[in-house]
């Protein structure tokens, strides 16, 4: 391959058609309450871990729904599972189970060549 002093930049666009929904489907099947997330961010606002590090619980919904497994895996490790988020969620989502389900299965769906 020739070196031109630059390389083709990877697109930042979320290509929805390329997205692997298996992890999402697994999580939603086991924890259907996660379907009703409003992305209000209440969980993130109250999050104990978010006080200490850049961590956004709300975004996990998005990462999962956009198939961003690599980022999701690193993000989710920051959660301390304290459960505060569940006490503020206006839709009563069982977030701790969502996190545990992701932790359980994420290795199955991580892209291989990364």
């Amino acid at each position, binding site marked *: 391959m020739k070196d031109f002093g630059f390389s083709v930049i990877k697109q*930042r666009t*979320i290509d*929805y058609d390329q997205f692997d929904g298996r992890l999402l489907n697994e999580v939603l099947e086991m924890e*259907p309450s996660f*379907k*009703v997330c409003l992305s209000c961010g209440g969980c993130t606002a109250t999050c104990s871990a978010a006080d200490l590090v850049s961590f956004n619980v709300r*975004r996990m919904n998005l990462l999962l729904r*956009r198939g961003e497994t690599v980022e999701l895996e690193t993000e989710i490790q920051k959660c301390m599972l304290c459960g505060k988020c569940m006490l503020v969620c206006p839709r009563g989502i069982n977030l701790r189970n969502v996190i545990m389900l992701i932790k359980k299965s994420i290795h199955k769906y991580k892209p291989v060549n990364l």
Partner: protein
Amino acid sequence: MKHIVVIGGGIAGMETACALTDAGHWVTVIEKEEQVGGKLNKWSYLFPDFTPADKILDALLEKHSEKDFSILSQTEVLSVNRQNNKFNIETSGKQKLEADAVVVATGYELFDASRKEEYGYKIYDHVITSADLEKLLLPDGDLSVAAGQNPKRIAFVHCVGSRDEKSGNHYCSKVCCITGVKQAIELKKRLPEAEIYCFYMDLRMYGKNFEELYREAQEKYDIQFIRGRLSEASEKIDKSLLIKSEDTLSGRPLKMNVDLLVLLVGMEAGKGTAKAAAACSIGCEESGFLRTSDPFLMSNFSEQEGIFLAGSCTAPMSVNDTILHARSAAQEVNNWLKKNN
């Protein structure tokens, strides 16, 4: 006996006429179309409980048929002139009417989606509006897209022609959010295999049971909501559509291939209302909707004494709000006539 002319034979006009007849007045409804009932004729099912629109329309029309008031259909008002506490009305049918009061109930028009060129309405094969979809949602409606296949992925675009400086409409049309949720559920019921996405800016579930329906859409029907306004749509070689938006919650651009794109068109005051406003010399807001004397206590009063306003010519309104507004208009007319007798 007092004579009242109602301009517009939609549900607002008919309901006002009905209530005024009940109050013992002589009412003439002027309708530009052949049929009365206005835009309700275009709708199949109503939010938030999927009541067939026919059912409501038939119930209203049946009630009206029992009343004794005249309807001038396929007629437009040319001019309204005040003369000695009377209004002289000239119509396109060359009739000259004399009225003691006038009710403007000219309703709204749907936003012409082809004005949002980037969405390709009337250009791409499978871009339709919510009004088009409404007809397809009837039991015999054909939802198939290219090669007779059922669409596998469908996207709804909220706020088409509303809240959009580019369309010239800054206001919110109020009913499209819930219409989108309603239609998404209906589509999912018809096509359980399809994935359905709603691209929204805000979801404004203002009415009774609206929020509940939204939750049901997520919970029971797996409708997915993506916060972002569609920038453009393009047709692919297989007639499917590539749509682009920002996933604003991720902060990244998003593209998606869909088989059917539904544009949730908003309401505009429209030509009928503009003509009526000109004929009656009453004022319009910047949005084009008719100006009411105040938004709280006199929402049925125009700036001209004796000219009243009913329904969605004053602002985007749902069917139930329109009916209520029409009834209150009749009440106000009746009170005003009594006071001025």
